[in-house]
Each structure stands twice: as structure tokens, then as C-alpha cells.
């Protein structure tokens, strides 16, 4: 490719950062421009033409919401009081999500790279873009083999689209190389759950939180990342529950907890092992349950013998007395709910952290019963459904394994191909970029994934995009990754399509279409089918719509662990959601897994867990430090996470004015002791440096974070992106990146750095308030 910016070479680990008119920090016809209410959205007394019951497009809780439509535009929302999960409750993102529609940055045509055009792209006819994409795909696959085309997909897509993306890659492209952005999110929990329970789903519905007498929350900023869950936790507390929160930051959910354990980032497995050690010492293990329903306890017990309270305290940075108190409460509780999220999962030993958590749940015997629960709080909108039906690199629909001959034969039968035509398992999303570096991947199709912002060591990711022969992106806004594309195909917003998603609880729900796609934009599944047709592999890609895709998905998932075969769209509407597995038409679904006496497809009556003997697995959970630990050169720990006002890489939420107004800029959060030691005042520019990059942001000095740790939210691109600093270390099993801990040094910014930071700071662009009222 001729574009010198796109072929930025990797020089000994340094990746030059592009700074041109395409720089996402600068002004640009593709934005991001924050939108505020205007026109009909600001008028009072507007009667909507219709109100559509659907769900929020953002996090894994998938709150019910009603969208108001006027003149084929979503103009506002109404609380959806009848949906049982959230009963009208919403966070600010859901409330303002309608501002992503009719947006000035919306892609209304296909785009073709043209350096002379404003923003670097010129409009191109959709059909022409499809033809050119197909020609490039054919050329690349003929010249370099089928695996030379890669697909990056996403977990904010409906399950129908996720299924179609997996099918498109594995059948139409016949490439091994598809993976998705859930790789950044839930995979450590998924791998841990599969190892311990044989199934990857929250074990309980959230209603089981309400009656638990002890709630244990590890590495989950519940109030900001899963806001509605706050009400469940606090309602349990009203009924007398104690709440333990484990986090390096005293987040809003921790503010009123009964016991706060300010853990050193990256050491969670040590805490869980220490708690199990004390449970054994105090005789608080449920021996009956362990004997009857699990295997592997003795080996785990031997392993945690070394995790004395003193060693646990040294490793985790939590006072020994607090660890003892937590273990005592956990050991004595009659009912409990343990939940965790990315805080323990975003680690180079994320699976070990999850297994440690599951070990203390299994040892307590408090699972598979009312008010006895365990769950990861899935982060992305369809983080659950998006990880079940074949867009993961090693997966086929129904949670089946691509390496499993029986699974291949079954799915090939559904798809009417020979099992041999299915490719072998591929590699994870980050490895796809390493394959680009090695020249093994030459072409890329992406949808619903913004790796330039969301992957660690993102200067490397950006440089690798420059090595591609051809990159086509499907998107509704030109996100920071799509800016590196040769072609962009205009896709659909959440409210412009229908389908199902599966919530953090494992509840399959229905997304309803509120409006049509504008301009030349169209539903993503149409675009994918157009591509299949254009490359001459149309067979199997002639669905008339998402309902037909779902009907095939039901068949494809039948008999798998994630069995959707008994779920129909009608049943979903009628029951306000259906919890999978749901293996038959007369089955109402499975809200709570692992109930004594329950049947499942793997154990077939031998027990409640998803192994042939029906028993859960204890797994030795081994502590190892984060890949990078503080040293004299980089003496602090950098951790990253979300803010309530933003979602993931910010492609949508940085374009919504009222949300951007809440947090116009990222910041560096640090403790007053550290601030004093470094001479950094609240609100001044500070510079954080890691072995990968440097970042200058304003300091936020607060006592609610460990003094050895700094925090930066990750929703911003370019020179405001913390992922230029994070480390590309990955868990060996789940391949999740270690976003939550790397070594960093911090200092007051130099005058030059501060000037540069001021130059790219976001001014408040809120227009004057309206003058109506009264």
C-alpha cells in the first residue's frame, strides 16, 4: 500500500504514531463530534409516532428501555417498567443512547480511501465497494491461502449476527482466523467456568443476589460498569446481607460495604487461596457437598496449604486481619453470592484468578440453590450470546469446539457442507495482529471491534494495520480502527435491526427494530450476505432476516451445551426472556444452573454439573505475579477501567454530548500520599510512562485508590489512550490481555507535555441552553 502512514514500521518496539488530518484527536468530517438534543428532540409536546419496547445497546445487563420514534427518528426514551430485570431503571448511557441516531458522523455511504478527500475517504457506491471487497478477498485467498483473510467481530452484535459472522468466516471464507472483542472481556471467566463447571454462563439469575446473606464482589466496579446490579446488592444488604468488596479502588459500591479489601492489582488468586486455606483451617468446608458433587479438592487443599494469612497479606497488600475477617464471614455464611468482573479477569493469570474464586464457592457448597450463587458480570451488550455461537476462534455454534470431530460433523451437517471443509481452530484477536506482522494474514474484515483503542500496546496494533494488503471495515461511525481501512461499508445501529441477545444472567431477550437504516447504510447481516454472494459462496447465506438466522441457530445449537433449540422469539417475548439451556419446545428455560437433581446434556442425569460424572472440578489455582511488576525504574502499578459515562472504546459514547460532558477527558487517578511524594497537585498535568509509551493527562488526587497504584480510564483514542501504555501480555489459556496491571512511573508533566496536552484537550462544546420553558 502506498500510504506511508499505514506502513509505519516497527522499530525495536517503538511504533511511530501518526499525526495528520486523520489523527483522531483532530477536527475531521467523520468526527467524533458530540451530539446534543436539537429540533424535534428538544421540542415539548411531541407525541411520538410509536414507542418500541427494546433493550439498551450498551452493557451486558441489557436493561429494558422504550424508544420513542417520531418521523422515523428515535427522539427519546421512556422507562420500561415491565421488564423484570431493571423495572425502568437505567444508567445515563441508556438514557442518552438515542443521540447516536441521526448523528452528523453517521456513515451514510460506503467509503473508499482517498488521501486527497476530507478525512481521507471519498464516498463510493455500495455495490462497487462490495465488488471491490470481493475481488480483494479472492485475490488474497488465491495468492496466499484461505487463512490469509482474517475476521474481527464483536460482542455487541446480536446473537444472530455473531452466529452469521462465525458461519461466514468458517464456511464462506473457510478461514481459521476469526476472533472477537470478547477476547478482551469475558474469556478468562469463560475458560475458568468451563474448567470448573463444564459450562460458561452465570450460574444464577440476579434475583438470587437478593436473599444472599453475604455478597462477595471481586474486581467489579459494579456501580459504574453494571449500575443496575447495585440495586440488587444493596437490596440484599437491606435484608441483612454483608457486602465484601475487593478492589484496588474504593469505588461507589465499596463506599458502604461492610468490608473493603484494597487488593494490589493482579494478586486476586492469592486472596482466594488464602481464604480457602482459612476455610480448611477453620473446618468451614462443606465436606458433604465436596464429597458428593466435586472432584479435585484434596490437590487444591494441598496447594493452598502454603497460603497462610501472613503470606496472603504480603502478596495481596491487604492487612492480615481483614483477610481473616473476610474468610471468617465467607466460611460461616449460610447463603452467598460471589461475583467478579474484569478486575480479576484482565490478567496474565486471569483464568487462575477465576478458578481461585470458583474454588471458594465450591468449598462452601453454596451453589445451585436459591440465594447461593456465583457469576461473572459480563461486560458487553451481548457478551454472553456473542461468546456461544461460533465467532470465537476455537468455536462452533452451541458452545461447541471447532476441534471436536463430533461437533464439526454436526454443524457441517446443519450447514450442508462436508466436515473437512471446516477449517481448524484459529488464533485469538491479538495473535491475529502478530500473524499480520509475520505476513501470514494479508486481508482483514472487521465489524464491531475497535482494536486501535481497545487492545493493549495499541501503537503496535496500529502499525500492523498498515501491513495489511487490504482492510475492509463495517461500521456505523468511522471508528479509530476503521480509519486505517481501504474500504468502509456502512452498517447498522442497534435500533435499526432486530434479533436476540443473551444478558449477563444468561437470559435470551429480544432486540426490536425502531427505525430503518439511513442512506445507503444497511443491516450488518445484509452486508455479510452481499459479500458471500460477491465472492461466489452464496450458499448458506440467503437468510431473509434475523428470524431465519435464529431458526438455523436453534438447530445448530441443539445438543450443545449452549442449547437454544427450545427458544423461539415468541417464547422470549411471552416470558420476558428465556434462560438457556432450553433444549425443547415445552421447556421454559434454566434460570439457575446446577440445581440438585437437574439434568444436563453432558452429565445426562449423573449430576448437576456439565461433566460426564456430573461433578464440578476443583482446579489448582496458581499464583504468579503480573507479567510486569514494579521495579526501581517503573515503581508503580498502572490499572485501567471504565467510567459510567462511557462505553468500551467510546465509538458511540464519545459522540453523545451529554455523556462526554460528564467526563470530557480521561485522567490519572492517584492517592494523596503518592501525589505529595511526587509533587503532583490535583488537576495538574501529569505524565505516566511505561516501557511502551507515555501519556499526559490531568491528575485526580483522591484517597480512594491504593497509594502504589494509578488508574486511567480507557475509552479514549490517540494521545489520550491508556492502551498505548498497557502491556500485551496475555493469559496462556484465555488469551485475555493484562489490562489491569503493568509497571509505570509517574511525574509532573514538563511544560512542553502540558502544552501539547492542552492543545488536544476537549473543550466543552455544549450549545447554549434552550430558552423555552414555563
Amino acid at each position, binding site marked *: 500500500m502506498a500510504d506511508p502512514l499505514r506502513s509505519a514500521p516497527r522499530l525495536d518496539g517503538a511504533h511511530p504514531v501518526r499525526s495528520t488530518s486523520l489523527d483522531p484527536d483532530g477536527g475531521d468530517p467523520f468526527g467524533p463530534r458530540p451530539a*446534543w*438534543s436539537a429540533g424535534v*428532540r*428538544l*421540542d*415539548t*409536546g*411531541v407525541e411520538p409516532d410509536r414507542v418500541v419496547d427494546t433493550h439498551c445497546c450498551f452493557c451486558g445487563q441489557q436493561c429494558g428501555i422504550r424508544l420513542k420514534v417520531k418521523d422515523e427518528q428515535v427522539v427519546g*426514551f421512556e*422507562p420500561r*417498567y415491565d421488564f423484570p430485570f*431493571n423495572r*425502568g*431503571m*437505567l*444508567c*445515563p448511557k441508556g*438514557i442518552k443512547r438515542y443521540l447516536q441516531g441521526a448523528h452528523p458522523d453517521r456513515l451514510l455511504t460506503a467509503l473508499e480511501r482517498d488521501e486527497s478527500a476530507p478525512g481521507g475517504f471519498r464516498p463510493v457506491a455500495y455495490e462497487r465497494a462490495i465488488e471491490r471487497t470481493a475481488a480483494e478477498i479472492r485475490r488474497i485467498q488465491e495468492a496466499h491461502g484461505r487463512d490469509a483473510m482474517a475476521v474481527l467481530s464483536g460482542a455487541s452484535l446480536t446473537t444472530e449476527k455473531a452466529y452469521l459472522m462465525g458461519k461466514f468466516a468458517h464456511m464462506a471464507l473457510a478461514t481459521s482466523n476469526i476472533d472477537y472483542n470478547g477476547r478482551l472481556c469475558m474469556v478468562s471467566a469463560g475458560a475458568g467456568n468451563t474448567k470448573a463447571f463444564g459450562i460458561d454462563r452465570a450460574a444464577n439469575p440476579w434475583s438470587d443476589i437478593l436473599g444472599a446473606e453475604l455478597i462477595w464482589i471481586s474486581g467489579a466496579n459494579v*456501580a*459504574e460498569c453494571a*449500575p443496575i446490579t*447495585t*440495586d440488587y446488592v*444493596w*437490596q440484599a444488604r*437491606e*435484608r441483612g446481607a454483608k457486602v465484601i468488596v475487593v478492589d484496588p479502588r*474504593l*469505588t*461507589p*459500591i465499596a*463506599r458502604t460495604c461492610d468490608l*473493603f*479489601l*484494597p487488593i494490589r492489582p493482579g494478586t486476586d488468586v492469592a486472596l482466594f487461596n488464602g481464604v480457602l486455606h482459612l476455610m480448611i483451617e477453620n473446618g468451614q468446608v462443606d465436606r458433604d457437598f465436596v464429597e458428593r458433587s466435586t472432584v479435585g479438592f484434596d490437590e487444591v487443599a494441598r496447594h493452598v496449604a502454603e497460603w497462610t494469612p501472613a503470606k496472603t*497479606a*504480603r502478596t*495481596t497488600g*491487604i*492487612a492480615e486481619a*481483614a483477610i481473616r475477617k473476610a474468610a471468617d464471614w465467607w466460611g460461616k455464611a449460610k447463603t452467598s453470592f460471589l461475583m467478579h468482573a474484569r478486575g480479576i479477569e484482565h490478567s496474565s493469570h486471569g483464568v487462575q484468578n477465576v478458578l481461585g474464586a470458583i474454588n471458594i464457592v465450591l468449598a462452601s457448597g453454596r451453589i445451585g440453590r436459591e440465594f447461593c450463587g456465583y457469576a461473572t458480570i459480563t461486560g458487553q451488550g451481548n457478551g454472553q450470546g456473542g461468546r456461544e455461537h461460533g465467532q470465537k476462534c476455537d468455536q462452533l455454534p452451541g458452545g461447541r469446539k471447532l476441534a471436536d470431530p463430533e461437533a464439526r460433523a454436526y454443524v457441517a451437517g446443519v450447514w450442508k457442507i462436508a466436515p473437512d471443509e471446516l477449517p481448524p481452530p484459529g488464533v485469538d484477536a491479538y495473535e491475529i495482529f502478530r500473524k499480520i506482522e509475520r505476513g501470514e494474514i494479508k486481508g482483514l474484515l472487521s465489524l464491531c471491534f475497535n482494536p486501535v483503542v481497545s487492545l493493549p500496546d495499541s501503537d503496535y496494533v496500529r502499525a500492523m494495520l498498515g501491513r495489511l494488503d487490504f482492510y475492509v471495515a463495517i461500521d456505523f461511525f468511522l471508528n479509530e480502527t476503521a480509519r486505517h481501512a481501504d474500504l468502509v461499508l456502512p452498517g447498522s445501529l442497534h435500533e435499526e435491526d432486530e434479533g436476540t441477545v443473551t444478558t449477563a444472567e444468561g437470559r435470551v431477550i429480544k432486540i426490536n427494530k425502531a427505525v430503518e437504516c439511513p442512506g445507503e447504510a444497511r443491516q450488518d447481516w445484509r452486508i455479510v450476505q452481499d459479500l458471500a454472494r460477491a465472492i461466489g459462496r452464496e450458499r448458506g447465506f440467503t437468510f431473509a432476516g434475523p428470524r431465519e438466522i435464529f431458526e438455523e441457530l436453534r438447530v445448530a445449537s441443539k445438543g450443545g451445551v449452549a442449547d437454544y433449540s427450545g427458544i423461539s422469539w415468541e417464547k422470549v417475548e411471552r416470558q420476558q426472556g428465556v434462560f438457556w439451556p432450553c433444549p425443547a419446545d415445552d421447556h421454559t428455560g434454566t434460570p439457575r444452573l446446577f440445581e440438585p437433581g437437574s439434568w444436563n446434556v453432558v452429565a445426562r442425569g449423573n449430576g448437576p454439573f456439565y461433566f460426564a460424572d456430573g461433578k464440578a472440578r476443583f482446579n489448582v489455582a496458581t499464583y504468579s505475579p503480573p507479567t510486569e*511488576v514494579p521495579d526501581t525504574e517503573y515503581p508503580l502499578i498502572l490499572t485501567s477501567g471504565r467510567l*459510567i459515562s462511557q462505553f468500551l472504546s467510546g465509538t458511540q459514547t464519545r459522540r453523545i454530548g*451529554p455523556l462526554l460532558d*460528564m467526563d470530557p477527558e480521561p485522567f490519572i487517578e492517584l492517592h*494523596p*500520599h503518592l501525589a505529595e511524594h511526587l509533587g503532583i497537585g*490535583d488537576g495538574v498535568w501529569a505524565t505516566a510512562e511505561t516501557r511502551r509509551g507515555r501519556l499526559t493527562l490531568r491528575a485526580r*488526587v*483522591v*484517597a*480512594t*485508590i*491504593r*497509594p502504589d497504584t494509578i488508574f486511567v480510564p480507557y475509552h479514549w483514542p490517540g494521545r489520550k489512550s491508556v492502551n498505548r501504555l498497557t502491556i500485551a501480555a496475555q493469559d496462556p489459556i484465555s488469551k485475555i490481555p493484562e489490562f489491569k496491571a503493568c509497571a509505570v512511573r509517574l511525574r509532573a508533566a514538563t511544560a512542553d507535555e502540558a502544552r501539547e496536552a492542552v492543545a488536544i484537550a476537549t473543550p466543552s462544546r455544549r450549545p447554549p*441552553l*434552550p430558552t*423555552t*420553558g*414555563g
Partner: protein
Amino acid sequence: MPVPADRHFYIDPARCIGCNACVQACSECDTHKGVSMIQLDFVDRARSTQTVPVVCMHCDQPTCAEVCPADAIKRTEDGVVQTARKARCIACNNCVLACPFGVPKMHDEANLMMKCDMCYDRTSQGLKPMCASVCPSQALFFGTREEIEALRPASRPVDGFRFGAQVVTTRVRMLVPKSFSEPLLAVTAPFESAPEARTASASFDPLLANLYQESES
């Protein structure tokens, strides 16, 4: 139709997570689109994530109405203190200065005081206010006394507030722990004590109190 007499607005600041859902939802209200009537603030962000949402308390004898020279602020029969009537408001700011809770805001572009009217367009139609509908932690709640008693067994509602010598009673109730037995919330009490007593807790660090162990690595 009036706001039902048995439905009340309850504020539970202990539950506020500072998410701004109330602020954002308020600006979607059909009578004042684009403008929020709710103020949400950190109490002391340097030391805590505690936030407090401020909505109109709907006083039984509203100070704002009492000081209004133009008689622009009406309290309806159902106990809701309405926003200033545009035809009467002279934008004098008396209400802004007088309200002990700091609720009324002057909107200079419109020359009009605007404030929370408990979503009168909704609550008078049997719906919940926007903010209390969406609040993810139910720090803002709208419902009956029986409902709130069932939901918050450890709390009790207070509807009396003392500001210096002034005592006001309100339609909106503040939830306090049952262990707090005073009949009134003495809002200004901390400012009435000697300054040194107020700074006693300034050095408290929740994280360093007794939970944190210095690194030995």
C-alpha cells in the same frame, strides 16, 4: 388529576452512586427538554465517592413562594411546588437566594426561574418521576410508605429539616438510618460548631485506616 396523596418521593443519599442517570433523565422531561432540574455533587471527592442528588423537597410552606414578590410560585393542592409561572416571574432571584436547599435556578436566557416540579406531567398521571424511575441504585424512590418500609427496613423517612432557626417540613422525605433518632435533620449543625470540631476527620483515610498493608516486595 392530582399526584396521589399516598405516593411520596424518598431520597436515600447513602445509596447514591453519582451516576448522573437522574440528571440525564431529568433533561428528557417534556416540560423542560434539554435542561436538568437536578443538581448532583460530590460531597468531598478527594476523600470519598459519596455524591448527593438535590431535587426540590416540595416544602409545606415553601420559602421560595413566600419570598416571591410576583406570586409566581404556586404550591398545588397535592403538595407540589410548581416551577415559576412564566407570565409572572420577574427573574428577581429572590427564590434562588432564599431556598434553604438551594434548588431554584435562574435561567437567564429565558428570564425565568425553573425548578423540579416532581415531574408533574408524569406524577399527576400516575407515573413515577423520570429521576426516580431510572435511578439505578434507587437512591431516588417514588412510591407508597408501605413500599419503602418493605424495601428499607433499616431506614426511616424524615420530613423535617432545620436550617439555623428555620424549620421546614417537606413532601419529599429523606431516608435516615433507624439508629438516628432525632425528629429533624439539623442540616446546618456542622457549621454552627467551632471550626476545629469540623476538621477533626480531615485526616481520615478510608483506605489506609486498617485495611492496607505496605508493600514488602
